[in-house]
């Protein structure tokens, strides 16, 4: 053959298949790949590792805490032994009671740890999504999407959007295209609902801070309402809202707000300054209310980022500026931000 390369060609010649003997199957949506826990855990660690600071002090603290608990345990057991030896009638029931308490505490701890793990798995899913979103290749997006699907709550509207996605999905789509389609069809409606929750909670906080007579009362109220918001958002994205996840979410959000918020604050500083001082002139409480509402909104946005199973690619996250406009009673801006999803809202409440 003219021009035949010397090495064995790395390509296969075009050919026609014999339908009688060939073994073939028509391309269908691939089944979900089995969970590769080791791989995922490793990737999650890799993702988080970059952000971790002061690992040494954290380890030292954990060690100290574990030692303190161990000491308390040992002390309790020895006291119980003494008690059983001196007065078994009181000691034995007490031992049984403490045993029950210890077992339930351990169970609770395991449950909380499991939920925390779920939250941190989101980081892995997002990292994987980010890796695939620019890809023109095929084969990795369907397993990822089925994992994301499994993590979302099984509410009727979400199931409906998932069905719409399956209908629109196509065997020729590349990984990046399929993920963008999924984000727009399935995740975007959930986002809109989450923005609504953020907006409602910041309005509550703003109004009640302005009305509350004592400073301590606003503080408590803000804390209570923000916690509810965190739990609502977590539930919306399919992360079970346990105490540990709420606290972890609150901690991550506060940290991210402190870092990421700087840029936002810098760009809006002048505007905020002018606006807040104007409001403060009218009423110090109203100014405080506006400030608290914005803080809650920023925390809410951060919570959405933490709970979302995919990164923002095909859809944009609203900026604090847009949310501020919506909070500060611009009804039209709020409507642009949140297109009507009454059905979804009703189901989730």
């Amino acid at each position, binding site marked *: 053959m003219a021009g035949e390369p010397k090495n064995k060609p790395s*390509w296969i010649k*075009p050919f*026609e298949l014999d339908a009688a003997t060939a073994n073939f*199957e028509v391309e269908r949506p691939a089944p979900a790949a089995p969970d590769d826990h080791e791989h995922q855990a490793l990737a999650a660690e890799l993702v988080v590792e970059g952000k971790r600071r002061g690992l040494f002090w954290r380890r030292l603290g954990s060690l100290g805490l574990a030692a303190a608990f161990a000491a308390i345990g040992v002390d309790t057991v020895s006291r119980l032994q003494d008690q059983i030896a001196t007065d078994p009638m009181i000691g034995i029931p007490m031992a049984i009671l403490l045993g029950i308490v210890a077992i339930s505490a351990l169970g609770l701890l395991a449950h909380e740890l499991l939920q925390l793990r779920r939250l941190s798995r989101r980081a892995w899913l997002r990292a994987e999504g980010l890796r695939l979103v620019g890809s023109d290749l095929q084969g990795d997006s369907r397993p990822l999407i089925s994992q994301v699907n499994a993590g979302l709550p099984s509410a009727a509207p979400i199931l409906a959007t998932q069905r719409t996605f399956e209908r629109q999905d196509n065997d*020729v789509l590349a990984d990046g295209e399929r993920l963008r389609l999924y984000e727009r069809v399935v995740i975007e409606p959930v986002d809109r609902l989450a923005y609504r929750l953020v907006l409602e909670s910041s309005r509550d906080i703003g109004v009640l801070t302005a009305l509350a007579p004592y400073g301590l009362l606003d503080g408590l109220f803000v804390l209570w309402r923000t916690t509810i918001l965190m739990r609502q958002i977590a539930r919306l994205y399919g992360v079970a809202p346990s105490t540990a996840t709420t606290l972890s979410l609150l901690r991550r959000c506060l940290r991210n707000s402190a870092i990421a918020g700087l840029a936002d604050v810098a760009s809006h500083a002048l505007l905020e300054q002018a606006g807040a001082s104007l409001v403060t002139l009218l009423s110090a409480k109203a100014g405080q209310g506006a400030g608290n509402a914005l803080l809650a909104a920023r925390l809410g946005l951060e919570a959405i980022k933490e709970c979302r199973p995919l990164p923002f690619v095909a859809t944009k996250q609203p900026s604090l500026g847009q949310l501020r406009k919506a909070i500060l009673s611009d009804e*039209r801006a709020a409507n642009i931000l949140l297109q009507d999803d009454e059905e979804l809202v009703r189901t989730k409440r």
Partner: protein
Amino acid sequence: MPPLFSWDLGLGRLVGGLADDIAELSGRALDNHLNLAVTGLRRSGKTVFITSLVHHLIDGHNLPFVAAVHEDRYMGAREIPLHDTRVFPYRQFHHDLDQTEPNWPAATETLSRLRLLIRARNPNRLTSTIQPIRELTLDIIDYPGEWLLDLPLIDETFQSFSEAAFSLAQTPPRTGVAQEWLAMARSIDQSSPVDTEVVARLSAAFTTYLKTCQRELGLSVIQPGRFTNPGEHAGSELLHFTPLPAAAEVPGSIRALFRRRFDLYRDEIVKRFYQDHFRRFDRQIVLVDLLSNLNAGAAYFADTQLALSMILKSFRYGSSSWLGRLFRPRIGRALFAASKADHVAPSQHAALKQLLELMIRPAARSARLEGVRPEVIALASLRCTDVVKTTHQGQTLSCLKGRRLGDKEEKIFFPGEIPPELPEAEDWTEDRFRFYQFEPRRLRTHGDNQHIRLDQAIEFLIGDKL
């Protein structure tokens, strides 16, 4: 006996044409009119693209990547009748494709135009009180791909055109088929007075050479384009000239005649074509049939690359101001599409896209220079294959199930692989690239999976106006 006076002075058409122009101008002033350039060489799939585009815009179904459709704002589209030009026969092509045994549209022989009105609800809640519905008028023209190669002639003189034609004719694979015409052109006495018989023989030899290059060798750089596809100029004397070796011009000689005919061809046919149809584009899609080029071989691949570079120099890229949009529009968005992507397995689309990106890099330079970043996709206007997986020598292969051109029934094929980089000399072995052509599948109303990425092309080209 014909009537002595005819009352049909074409007034109706004239007035209608004027009304069309006014509608276009007002649409452009309000920024709701776009001229879409569907650019592509011969057999690159322009007509099928336009037919499928119009079908899907009218149908509004299976376009998940079009934002207006996704947001449930898309209302539909309809054809607007035009008066002054030949209207693109959409209904006929659509009818041909919407049959139990569908047929590909015949090769385009003449210019035609289509105007589409597209409506969608305004997504902007602030402006929607004033303008609840957005309307976009989209103008598309279809024309024989050969005519595109005429556009670079606008800046040529007879001398420069002749030099380029001679140097091209002396390089393979043209050398063999150009011999007869070359010998004839070199042997004649250019300063002799015009002899109609000599002129006829020379121009016939040149036309035969061009037609052989195009139809038998499958080459793309065919200049002048009307020699192989004359359209309404069939039989015109304007098409009777050939390039000549450099010589001094004597008045009344053959050379003088050919130079004059070339000038007329350039000014009357090419410039008018450009002025009337190619000056006012806002968006562009360039369709490239990479698979046929790979099938044809290295020389043809390079020839298409050269043709694309030559053609794209004729378009104006950049962003248009309000006034510019009215009188001197520029192409603000350019999309390069590797057409017939359904003729390879989806796993090859990434390589197809990458190869096209490399191939058009020189051609897209002028657009980049003006700040227009061209997008590249692998596209199939009308999908005619299914994807099938099979195992071959222990490897899982993505194959295609479809009816090959001329076959009676569907069969399964492994269509071959696309090199992700420009093929080197040793890659062009005899049987590496043998991509099949397929018969069309029926283009149904509300059908699923009828295209590949046509929706992404629509979103890129006109999505911002919906």
